[in-house]
Each structure stands twice: as C-alpha cells, then as structure tokens.
C-alpha cells in the first residue's frame, strides 16, 4: 500500500501545495488501494476515469497557482448525493439505472474547490439503517475486525461505505449524511471523525431526501482538522434549499485551536442508559477527565426527555420518509414493474423496488399520518420533539458543549440485530436527540473496546456553534492520541 494514502487530508493538501506530490499520483494511489480493498464493498460505483481527469485539471490549477481549498484531494461521495452523469442509487433498487442530469449543491461546491471524485460510497437503502446492511448493493464490511479474527463486522450506518472508505485509506475524506446519527455512529464504529453540522448549515439540494427536517450533510475524515477543512468547503447558504441558513460560514480551519480553557462541558445524567457496557461508561469518564485536564469545567446536567427521543424520531422520520418516497412511482425514473393498470404498476414497482426496512418505515409513516392517528402519533411526536429541543436550550444556558458517548456499543457482527428492528434502532440512542434539536455534533475516536475495536465520544454544541464543537473535538483527539489502524492495515504497514 502506497504511503500516499496514509496522509491526512491536511498533510496531502500541504504536500500538493508545495508540489511535493501531484494530484495524479495521489488519485492513482487511491484508485489502486480501492481495487485491492473491494472486499469491503465500500463503493457502489468507482469513477477512476473521472478521478484521473479531475486530478489532471487539479494539477494544472496547482501549476498555475490557482488552487482551490481542496485542490487535488480525492474523496468518496455517499451515494445519496446526486452527481451529474454518475449513477446515483441511494442504495435502492428503485433508483435502478438513475443517472442524475444535475449536481447536488454540496458536491458542486467540492468540485469547485478542486476535489477529485473517487466514486460513490455504499450506504443503507435511502440512508435508513445503522449497520449498512440494507443496501440493495450488499452490506459493507468494516475494515476493522477483532484482533486475529476474521468475522466480518458492520461499519455502522447509514454512511457505512463512506466511513469504511476513510478508515481503510481508500479515500482521504468522504461526504456523509446524518438524519439520526448516520455520520457520527459509523465514524465511531470505524475509528474516524464524523460531524453533523447544524441543521441548515449545508444545502440539501440534490441529496436524495429521507426525512427533510432532520437530514444534514457532513464530513467523515481521519482527523478533526481534516473535518474542519472538508466542512468549510461543504457549508454555505443555497437559495435552492429553503431551509439552508443565510449565515456567514465562520473560518473553522483558521479558528481551530483545540483550546478549551474555561469552557463549561455538560455531562447529561440521562445518557447513562440501562445496559450500557461498563467500558463505554469508563471511556466517557476518561473523556471528561481529559477535558478537565485541558482546562474545561465539567458540569453535571440534565436532559430529562432523552429517553423519548428515539420513539419520537421513529414517528417523525418515517412520516417524512413516507411523504418523500411517494415520488418513486416508476413513471419518471428508476425501476418500473408493469401491472395490469396504473395502481398495480405503482404497487408492484414499490413492492419490488423497496427493501424491507424502507417498507417498514414507509408503512409506519403512512400509519402515523393517516386519518385518526395523526394527532396521537405525529402531533404528539412533534410536541415531544419540542420538549427535547427545550431540554438542550435549557442546558446550554449553563454549559458551552455537551460530552456523551457516540454509540452504546462498538461495531457488531454482520447479521447481528438484523431481525430485531428496535434493537437496531437503539444504536442511535445518543445521536438522535441532537438531530431532533437540529444541533451540531461530532464523533471523535477516543479509545478501544476490550475486544480491540474503536469507540467514539460525541460532542454536541449550540446551534451554529460548530467552532466550539470542533475545538472540544480537537482537545479530545489530542488527549486520546488514537493512532491504532484497522488490523489488516497495520500488518500491511
């Protein structure tokens, strides 16, 4: 394996800027690494030709001194972002053969900043899942296994392909989307950094919609500095997304110091959930100690409605999904399975085109929105959602950021929890509350489980205060000094 793929995004950018390496070399090294890591199934579509053409253009701009923020940086793009002229699947059979005639705003911004497209990363179907096992294109393998074991583990989800690609060094960074934890949880499972910015920070235009009031794009990278860099290029107001915020994007790259002296960090009592492994509780305590040692003040806080976040989410997200996914009717794009009449064609197309988890959620959503149940389920959930947002608002009067574990476990075996939807949903118990409140959150690798698998800690911040989240993330990263590689990669080194 080439040393070039072991650089961080920040290091690669510096090496490109001083012309120590070329974008072409960097792209070629990644394309070769991708080929030898196909067993992970991290990519649905590889785009080597486009990558080399983009790298050549990047090299020309670097020569002319016109380098953009991400000039020559090879990225994996979650296959939920529409990319003009490149198959976009959302991991679903129903989008069979769909080649978008337009570009999502986030990816357009990345290409304008000079980034190079390596391909489209695998994901749970329509981003619905926490293990990347619901993709029509097959499950993704986590590059991590337990030491000296071959048993395949899940990478988390839904941005499982993105997280696996970054961890396996077959992308310098990746885009993901996070609706209830889909960036942060896979980042934790794969030992990398993943951040969901404030709702409205990144444009949703051209991202295949799952739950519109929750979906946010964000970066997956190997360091917090890389995360700031990638987010910088992705964020910003877009008139094509009415929920995107017309706010100035702060200088996160220049502002990142990791200095947290005097910051007040909240530890929410309600996140000590029943059945949480002791090692995760210890890691969480250690994280608080690290922050205290770096000069922060640790405070116990209360977020009383935490336990109702998941059930509220499982009404709101499916309700929005049932409405968003109504567009897949087999008439204008994607799969069509003919029936005897229009209704039968719809029913066959959607019956065959959607996988089991997507059907489950569309049906729950349809039920929750149907006559007679709307008040009891949907309105109730929206009220509980406000209670949860109020909890955070109250807590942020006293603290500047909140520290929690990212997920209640390390990566689990492929096939585990697959027959028990509620057990699978519980993966997102620590990430969903911030999603419902629209708040920014980052997951930073903080240590290893007793089985030798990565575990992440999550930092949640105030709305629009990604800067503090990144600084606390950086402080954790510095203290944790997490350098363990997935074992296959460590041996290859």
């Amino acid at each position, binding site marked *: 394996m080439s040393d070039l793929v072991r650089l961080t995004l920040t290091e690669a950018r510096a090496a490109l800027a001083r012309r120590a390496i070329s974008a072409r070399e960097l792209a070629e090294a990644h394309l070769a690494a991708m080929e030898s890591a196909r067993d992970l199934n991290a990519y649905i579509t590889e785009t080597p030709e486009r990558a080399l053409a983009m790298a050549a253009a990047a090299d020309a701009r670097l020569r002319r001194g016109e380098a953009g923020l991400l000039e020559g940086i090879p990225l994996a793009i979650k296959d939920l972002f529409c990319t003009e002229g490149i198959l976009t699947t959302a991991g679903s059979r129903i989008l069979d053969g*769909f*080649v978008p*005639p*337009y570009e999502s705003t986030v990816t357009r911004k990345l290409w304008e900043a000079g980034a190079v497209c390596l391909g489209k990363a695998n994901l749970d179907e329509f981003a619905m899942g926490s293990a990347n096992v619901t993709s029509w294109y097959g499950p993704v393998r986590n590059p991590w296994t337990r030491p000296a074991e071959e048993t395949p583990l899940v990478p988390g989800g839904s941005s499982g392909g993105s997280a696996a690609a970054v961890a396996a060094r077959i992308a310098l960074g990746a885009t993901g989307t996070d609706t209830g934890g889909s960036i942060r949880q896979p980042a934790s499972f794969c030992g990398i950094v993943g951040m969901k910015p404030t709702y*409205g920070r990144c444009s949703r235009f051209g991202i295949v919609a799952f739950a519109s*009031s929750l979906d946010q794009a964000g970066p997956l990278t190997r360091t917090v500095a890389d995360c700031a860099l990638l987010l910088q290029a992705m964020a910003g107001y877009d*008139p094509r997304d*009415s*929920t995107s915020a*017309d706010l100035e994007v702060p200088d996160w790259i220049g502002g990142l110091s990791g200095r947290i002296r005097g910051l007040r960090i909240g530890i929410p009592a309600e996140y000590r959930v029943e059945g949480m492994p002791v090692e995760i509780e210890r890691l969480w305590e250690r994280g608080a100690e690290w922050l205290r040692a770096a000069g922060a003040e640790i405070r116990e806080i209360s977020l009383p*409605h935490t*336990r*109702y976040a998941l*059930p*509220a989410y*499982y*009404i709101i997200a499916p309700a929005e999904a*049932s409405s968003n996914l109504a567009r897949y*009717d087999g*008439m*204008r*794009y*994607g*799969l069509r399975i*003919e*029936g005897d*009449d*229009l*209704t*039968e064609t*719809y*029913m*066959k197309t*959607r*019956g*065959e085109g*959607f996988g*089991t988890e997507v*059907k*489950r959620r*569309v*049906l*729950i959503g*349809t*039920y929750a929105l*149907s006559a007679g149940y709307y008040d009891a*389920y949907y309105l*109730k*959930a*929206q*009220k*509980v*959602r*406000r*209670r949860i*947002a109020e909890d955070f608002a109250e807590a942020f009067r006293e603290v500047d950021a909140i520290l929690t574990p990212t997920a209640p476990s390390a990566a689990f075996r492929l096939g585990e929890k697959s027959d028990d*939807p*509620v057990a699978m949903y519980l993966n997102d118990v620590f990430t969903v509350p911030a999603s419902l409140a*629209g708040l920014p959150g980052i997951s930073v690798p903080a240590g290893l489980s007793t089985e030798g698998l990565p575990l992440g800690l999550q930092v949640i911040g105030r*709305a629009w205060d990604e800067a503090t989240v990144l600084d606390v993330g950086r402080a954790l990263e510095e203290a944790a000094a997490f350098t363990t590689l997935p074992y296959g990669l460590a041996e290859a080194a």
Partner: protein
Amino acid sequence: MALDKTTVARIAHLARIELPETQLDALTGELARILEWIDQLSEVDTEDVEPMRKVMEIAAHWRTDEVTDGGRREDILKNAPETHDGYFVVPKVVE
C-alpha cells in the same frame, strides 16, 4: 392501539406497496412491536406544548418571482422507463 393484518394491508395499499402474504405476516408483527415501543411517548406531558414545525428559527428567504430554470425536457426525460415524442409514457389511466 393494536395493529392487525387488515390494518397493515390497508396502509400498504395507501402507500401503494404490494406485499405478498408472507411479508404481510412478518411486517404486522414487527410494526406492532415498533408501535408498542413508540407508545411510551404517551408518558410525556405535552399539555400546552406547540408542535415543533420548524427546526431552526431563521426567517424564510424571499426572492423575486421569476423563472430561473426550465426548458430542460431532454434532461428530464432521460431517466424515464418509457417515453414517446417528448412525453412520459404511463399506463392507461382513463378508460
């Protein structure tokens, strides 16, 4: 609010999803369990709480009402399962 097979079949029809009998059985059990788990929401006192309809309290943007895009028939038809003479072809709707 128990969920039975008839109800699941009804919502599947509303959602225009064909479910073979075997899937209908499995889904009924799963959905009933999920909804039972969701029912804990009833413990939360939401008296006088306004439903959250907007995530961030930011003002909506106004723009001039003018045409800024269009004339892209070819692009729009490119992914269609079946087209004819610049139109989508759909199953017969009116007898």
